[in-house]
């Protein structure tokens, strides 16, 4: 089975690979894994004034998992938290033309986005609570 051109492109030139310091201001970290295939994905967002100004990822897994997370970081940049919540795995499947056996990679990416957003919201919520 061949990967689509877009998957190959993201795999060869991954966008936004790397990481932020977890405890830095405005950082949300999502760390997820797929127990069935052993893939691990870390996705981080940097938020300023409710907008995602930067995003980074690190993925250990197959080409589709890397491409899914790479694409996710591209999409996240410039989005508000609320807009980011709307990203669905099916959007990733469509954009990357993922075959049925690789759909779980896009699910993993969506989970990572959700986890990063939740982590950011929890951290900023804690801070507002502490300030009150």
């Amino acid at each position, binding site marked *: 089975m061949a990967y689509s051109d877009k998957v190959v492109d993201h795999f060869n030139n991954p966008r936004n690979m790397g990481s932020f310091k977890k405890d830095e201001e405005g950082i949300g970290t999502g*760390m997820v*894994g797929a127990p069935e295939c*052993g893939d691990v994905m*870390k996705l981080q967002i940097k938020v300023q004034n409710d907008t995602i100004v930067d995003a980074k990822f*690190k993925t*250990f897994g197959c080409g589709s998992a890397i491409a899914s997370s790479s694409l996710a970081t591209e999409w996240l940049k410039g989005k508000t938290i609320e807009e980011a919540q709307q990203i669905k795995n099916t959007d990733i499947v469509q954009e990357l033309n993922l075959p049925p056996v690789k759909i779980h990679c896009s699910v993993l990416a969506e989970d990572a986005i959700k986890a990063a957003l939740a982590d950011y919201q929890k951290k900023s919520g804690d801070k507002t609570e502490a300030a009150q």
Partner: protein
Amino acid sequence: MAHHTHTSGSRDLQMARSMCWHCQSEVSGEYFCDRCVKVQPVSKETDYFTCFGLPRRLTVDQSKLEAKFYELSRAFHPDFYQNKSEAEQTISLGNAATLNTAYRTLRDPIQRAEYLLDLEAGSVKEIRTSPPSDLFEEILELQDTLEAYRASESASEAGRTLRAQLVAEQAALEGRKHEMEQQLQRLFTGWDALQDRGDAAAQARAERDRLLKQMRDLLSNRTYVKNIVTDLVATIG
């Protein structure tokens, strides 16, 4: 559906009771109709343990499993169905395929456990497993070292240092994988003992869920470790 709640009572190794496709009599035999002796298809609801007449346990008598598998492989061998009807040929072929998969699954302790956990999934899914963040961080860090090694000149000082580091990592991870497998083995024994007791008290149910969750977590973590080890081996040879 009220009458269909729990049938754990007498699990005396029967195929799901149904009608013989040929003579319409009730089939109570294992794979062949008692009356017309025609081969019967393995029911979709029959779990792999029942296929081989084994109790649903995580420790399996390997010699018994193998003997039963060979016996059934002979019983469904295409050679014996050449002169039979098309329906019988199709059924025996289907049975042989199912039993092959069943045998491969039950033969391997890890696959067997994964399969049993799937059978028990109803209650496992309710238990939220938390992703092992520390292990993930470790795997991703190791991934960076692997990248650096792949990019380095293997004969260079840096290349040699990275290689030594990776060799050490591989040994450590393989040790951990082995430890996980031993721990799993202990859980398997605990699970079987609990099943043997057949206790339905609340305490036993809690113990059951605890064991299922621990097994689920360990099996997942083992897969993560196994994958990174495979990657390591492929890179440093």
